């Protein structure tokens, strides 16, 4: 119970800050609350289907399929699949966390999960299209060309730092405790 309450500490802090702001600077305070509510609506709109899909992935996709395609021995193929799947994604990175978490539990290689998250965050197709539209093709292409190797390097670097060893599996229990 205590730990449950502690998880609301950040939220409580924010509410106190909002109240203080509304008291001292009403305009700023109401702006903060309004932006937060806008975001809340946006999140509540797209999070439910993502969690439903993650739940279905959990019960239907057998471990062997994930292991075979993006597991420890998937090699270049695993990297390519991770990138291709994530470029098709849309929505902010925090929507990708539960997906990558589910993949890791199913035996996805750590490097591939990190590459998946990196791709989701930086070079997914809807994002690149918006970048081309607003800033221009040369900027977007150059960023893509530089970001791609950076994402892949991050994946393997993470494996070395977190010492997942030869299996390439991420033994950290953090992903499990949610279920």
């Amino acid at each position, binding site marked *: 119970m205590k730990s449950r309450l502690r998880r609301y500490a950040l939220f409580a802090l*924010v509410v106190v800050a909002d109240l203080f702001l509304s008291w001292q600077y009403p305009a700023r305070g109401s702006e903060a609350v309004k932006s937060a509510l806008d975001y809340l609506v946006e999140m509540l709109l797209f999070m439910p289907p993502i969690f*439903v*899909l993650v739940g279905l992935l959990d019960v239907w996709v057998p471990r062997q399929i994930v292991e075979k395609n993006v597991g420890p021995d998937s090699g270049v193929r695993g990297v390519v699949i991770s990138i291709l799947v994530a470029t098709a994604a849309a929505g902010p990175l925090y929507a990708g966390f539960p997906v990558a978490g589910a993949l890791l539990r199913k035996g996805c290689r750590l490097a591939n999960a990190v590459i998946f998250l990196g791709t989701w*965050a930086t070079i997914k197709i809807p994002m690149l299209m918006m970048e081309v539209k607003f800033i221009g093709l040369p900027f977007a292409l150059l960023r893509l060309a530089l970001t791609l190797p950076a994402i892949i390097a991050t994946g393997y670097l*993470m494996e070395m730092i*977190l010492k997942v060893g030869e299996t390439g599996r991420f033994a950290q229990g953090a992903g499990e405790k*949610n*279920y």
Partner: protein
Amino acid sequence: MLFNIVLYVLAAAALCISFRRDRQKTKKALAIAWNSFRNLIPTMLGIIGLIGLMLALVPREVIAGLFGNNSPAGILLISLAGAVTLMPAFIAFPLAASLLQSGASVMAVACFITTLLMVGIITAPMEVNFFGKKFTFCRNAIGFVLALVIGGVMGVVMQ
């Protein structure tokens, strides 16, 4: 909006197929979905509140003001701003475009975009929830360094 519709259609279709094939498994999937959603709510509410505070207290003009200074310290400051803030792409890219038009350097704008996308300080509590502290710290630290490198190279190449 279109993305949301596609997502709902996809989830609904998958749910229907799953329900026809195996009711028990579908129930289990929904239980997993509900549990992970419920687990995320406390952190999510806190983060949403933080984003609201950030948008109210650090207006776009302040971020834009940072871009006048293109010294190494200025670039570092912009990159820190990019790492800490969180804004959707449809706000970030128009902002970046308007900054470029009003005379900010490519390097400054590129560093802001790369750090914004590759480092997520605000969403770190959520990331910790799923992957643990060490993972979150390392991924974001590596992201920050590489974001600076990419931004720097872009600034030099596109000058």
